[in-house]
Structures are given as structure tokens and as C-alpha cells.
């Protein structure tokens, strides 16, 4: 089993969005970084499949040099090695991101077995473009299923389940395949201290792809109005219960 998981470094935004003065990015001076929640489940699923069936989990990201931190985090929870498609920190649109990943996959498969599965998060937490996995699948001629909450490996194929308004749609596709997963697929483990130590010694390859002209070209970011409402304080402590019930009655929910 050879599995590639694609992840993206994103800031942990906390309670409030604050932009840089040029309106091109979130101010991250005081923020930590992580990967998108859906992708955490992708990494966990890959590691579990490799634990059960043997093989290797490779984790790939396109991002600045600092994104090594996220690759090491993934390796601390069980990924075997990392690929960093290093950028200068500028955003890459979905088309150029997919194209760089396709080039990397082709190179990785030149002198090794092809990946049985290539996993993506359904959409990234930040840009939410909903398309990188699908573009990669098209370019590689692989089947792709989106929005997955359950994956079961069968002989030469994979059975997938996806939420469909109170029910689950079932797909079965042959491997190799591209799968885009959602949080809830599993409960990702936390990295252990020995895991973190091992991660430091795992192999990490760095490639520097060229950034093509952007076809979905970010102009500026805006914080939507509505942040910074002033809540009406009904009271302090349990004495506020009567006021809360009055409110519920006035809203017609009690």
C-alpha cells in the first residue's frame, strides 16, 4: 500500500480575523499554524491503512519553507516521509497548485510503485477552492470521489461513503484512486513525544516549482461586517436563568 496525502499549512485563526495592512493576508504574527481539519483525518486514515496492510505514507505540501513544520507534525503521527513543494510564501491558485502536485506525483512514480491512493481534504480551511483533488485526478487519469466519511479497502478497489442528507451514498472505485475526505472520517491521534523525535529523522525532500501566472488572481481580502457585535448581557451566574427563560419564550422556543 503506497499512499500520498496532500496537506496545506494554514493559520490557527482563533476568535478574530485580522488582516495585514496591504489586505493580502491574515496577520499571523501572533498565530500558530496547523493543517486543515479534513486533512488531519486524511493523514490519520493513511497511517491506519498502512498499519493494517503495510506500505508507506508520503505527505506532501505546497507552501513556504516554514511548512516543514506541518510535514514534521504529520510524520510525528505516523507518515513515513515528506515532500515540500517550496514557494516564496505567495498564494498559489488551485490550478497551479494541482499542476505542481501532478508534476511531483509523476516524478515520485518514475522510479517507485505508483500510489494506490492519493488523499486530499475536501476543501482547504482557508481558501476553500474545492477543486485541487479533482484537478489532480483528471490530469493523472484516476477516478476521484469527494466528501468521504468512510473508506474501506477491498481487493483492488475501495468502498467509500459520503453523507447525503440523513443517508449515505456508496461508491466503489478501483485503485489507484484519488479520494477527498471530510473531518469525522476518523478521530486523529495526537503526536507522541517519541513520535515527534522520530519525525525529526524522517526523510524530507524539497522541490522548488515555478509559480505560473495566476488565473484566479487574489486582489484583496476583506473582513466581513458583523464581527464585533455587542451582546446584550442578560445577567451573571444562575440568577440569570429567569431572564434566559423569558428570552426563550419570547423567541417561541420554550
Amino acid at each position, binding site marked *: 500500500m503506497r499512499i500520498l496525502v496532500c496537506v496545506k499549512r494554514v493559520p490557527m485563526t482563533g*476568535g478574530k*480575523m485580522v488582516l495585514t495592512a496591504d489586505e493580502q493576508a491574515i496577520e499571523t504574527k501572533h498565530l500558530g499554524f496547523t493543517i486543515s*481539519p479534513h486533512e488531519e483525518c486524511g493523514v490519520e486514515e493513511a497511517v491506519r491503512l498502512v498499519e493494517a496492510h503495510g506500505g508507506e505514507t508520503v505527505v506532501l505540501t505546497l507552501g513556504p519553507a516554514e511548512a516543514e513544520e506541518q510535514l514534521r507534525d504529520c510524520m510525528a503521527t505516523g507518515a513515513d516521509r515528506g515532500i515540500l513543494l517550496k514557494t516564496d510564501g505567495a498564494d498559489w491558485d488551485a490550478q497551479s497548485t494541482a499542476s505542481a502536485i501532478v508534476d511531483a506525483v509523476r516524478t515520485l512514480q518514475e522510479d517507485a510503485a505508483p500510489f494506490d491512493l492519493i488523499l486530499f481534504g475536501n476543501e482547504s480551511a482557508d481558501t476553500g477552492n474545492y477543486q485541487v483533488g479533482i484537478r489532480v485526478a483528471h490530469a493523472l487519469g484516476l477516478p476521484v470521489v469527494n466528501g468521504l466519511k468512510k473508506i474501506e479497502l477491498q481487493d483492488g478497489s475501495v468502498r467509500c461513503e459520503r453523507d447525503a442528507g440523513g443517508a449515505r451514498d456508496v461508491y466503489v*472505485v478501483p485503485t489507484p484512486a484519488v479520494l477527498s475526505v471530510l473531518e469525522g472520517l476518523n478521530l486523529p491521534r495526537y503526536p507522541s513525544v517519541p513520535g515527534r523525535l522520530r519525525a525529526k529523522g524522517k526523510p524530507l525532500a524539497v522541490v522548488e516549482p515555478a509559480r505560473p501566472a495566476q488565473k484566479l488572481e487574489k486582489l484583496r481580502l476583506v*473582513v466581513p461586517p458583523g464581527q464585533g457585535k455587542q451582546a446584550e448581557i442578560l445577567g451573571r451566574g*444562575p440568577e440569570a436563568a429567569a431572564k434566559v427563560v423569558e428570552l426563550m419564550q419570547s423567541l417561541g422556543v420554550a
Partner: protein
Amino acid sequence: MSVLVFVEGDELSLQALTLARTLGEVKAVTLDGPYAPAAWAAAIVEASRGMDAIVAAGSDHGNELLAHVAARLDQPFAANVTAVDGDVVTRVRWGGSLIEQARLHGSPKILTVAPHTQPAAEAVPVERLVVPADADASVRVLETVSESGGGVSLRDAKVVVSGGRGVGSAEGFAIIEELAGLLGGAVGCSRVVTSAGWRPHADQVGQTGTKISADLYVACGISGATQHIAGAKGAKKILAINDDAEAPIFASADYAVVGDLHEIVPAISAELRRVRGQ
């Protein structure tokens, strides 16, 4: 400008029509039979010949289909757009917590419309497309299995009572469940809670969980991270209960009670019982 709009029989498709009509003359199309994203996209691509734009709802299917369409045509695709002005689109990032203005190059313009940002249009005549004979329909829904689990659905509940880190443990949710039960509502929680394994992911309100539409959302011991607000902001009113008067949740809430949820939530349940004469 001629605009091809893919619609399904849902509210979000009617909202997408509203934005599509601001772009030009609309032709609405749909498909039926087992959902097969790549094959359906092939049909949409066929139907889009000579059109200037391709639009769908920013739904699960809409975003997926137009990503396939864009990949086939090797064109850019802007997901979850709220407005279009020439080549410039306004779209949502971070589940709606941030807005982006971007230039959408390429032709045709391919975009989906962010849910609940437009009024619904009146229904229009819809042409049913046929999947081209040479399209690959091997990725398709083979069966639909029902999900076990009764109770009030989080997405549609009129009241959601939700707990965060401040609840402290899985057992701590007993008081949240009690209040939700009294109100005939659903139990929700924040991402911290599902990551800790206190509640199943199906209970999570947030950008990567369920987006609710309750009349009242009661957020207990939830700090109010943007990831959480992205799922909660569909509620008409938000009541936050938190012992930290500086918690960001109070900047997204309509009503606040400051104090220990472990005392306040049972007191609300007791008061409800009292006024009902129970």
C-alpha cells in the same frame, strides 16, 4: 452574455439562479439518474459550448461538478461567489469568516454561488441533459444506505444547545443534553470537543462540522473561534454562556450570560420546569 446554470431541485439552486441572472441570459439544465460526477460534468461541458459562463450552487454537488467541468476545460473555477463585477468575483474564504476579491481569468467563467447569500429566484424551465455516450460513469452512486440515529437533526433543529471546552468532559454534557431535551432541540458541540472524543463528529457545529439554522443557538463554554462561528452564524439568535467575559463568542452573540455554565445551565433547566409547573 449567455449563462449555463446547473440546477437541482433545491433552494440553493434557486439562489444560484438569482446571481446567474445578473450575468446574462440564463439556460438552466439538470441531470437525473444515479449521481456520477465525472460523467455529469461531461454532459455539462457539452451543453456549455458557446456559452460565456457556467454557474451552479455552492453545494456539495455544485462545487464538485464545476470542479470537474473546470478540470476538463482547463479553466479556473471560483467556488462560493457572492457577487460578480466584470472579471472580478467576490467569494468567501474560511467558511464565510473572510471575503476575497479576485480576478477570474479565462473563458467561460466558471463559478458556484455561496449558499444563503442571494434570495431564491422563481423556478425557470429546465432542460434535462443526457450523459454523452463516451463519458466515463464508473464513479457513481451505487446505493444509498440509511443512517441510524434518531433524535432531532442538528441541521434542522429549532434550538441547538451546544457545549465547548468549558464543559470539561464527556460526562459534563449531561446538563447540556437535559436542557436540549427540555427544549425539544439538538445537542451540538465545538471542534475541541470532538477532537477530544467527548462527542461524535456528527454533533460538531462549525466550518468542518454542521452548519445550523436554528432560531436559537445556546453556546455554553465555547470560546468562539472563527471555525465555530462559521457553523453557528446561520442561527437567528445566539445566546452565549461563558465565564470569561472577554471570550470572542460574545462578539458574535446577541445575548450573554457571564458565569459558570455548570451552575447556569441546570438553573435554566430548573426554571423551565418551574414555569411549566413540572
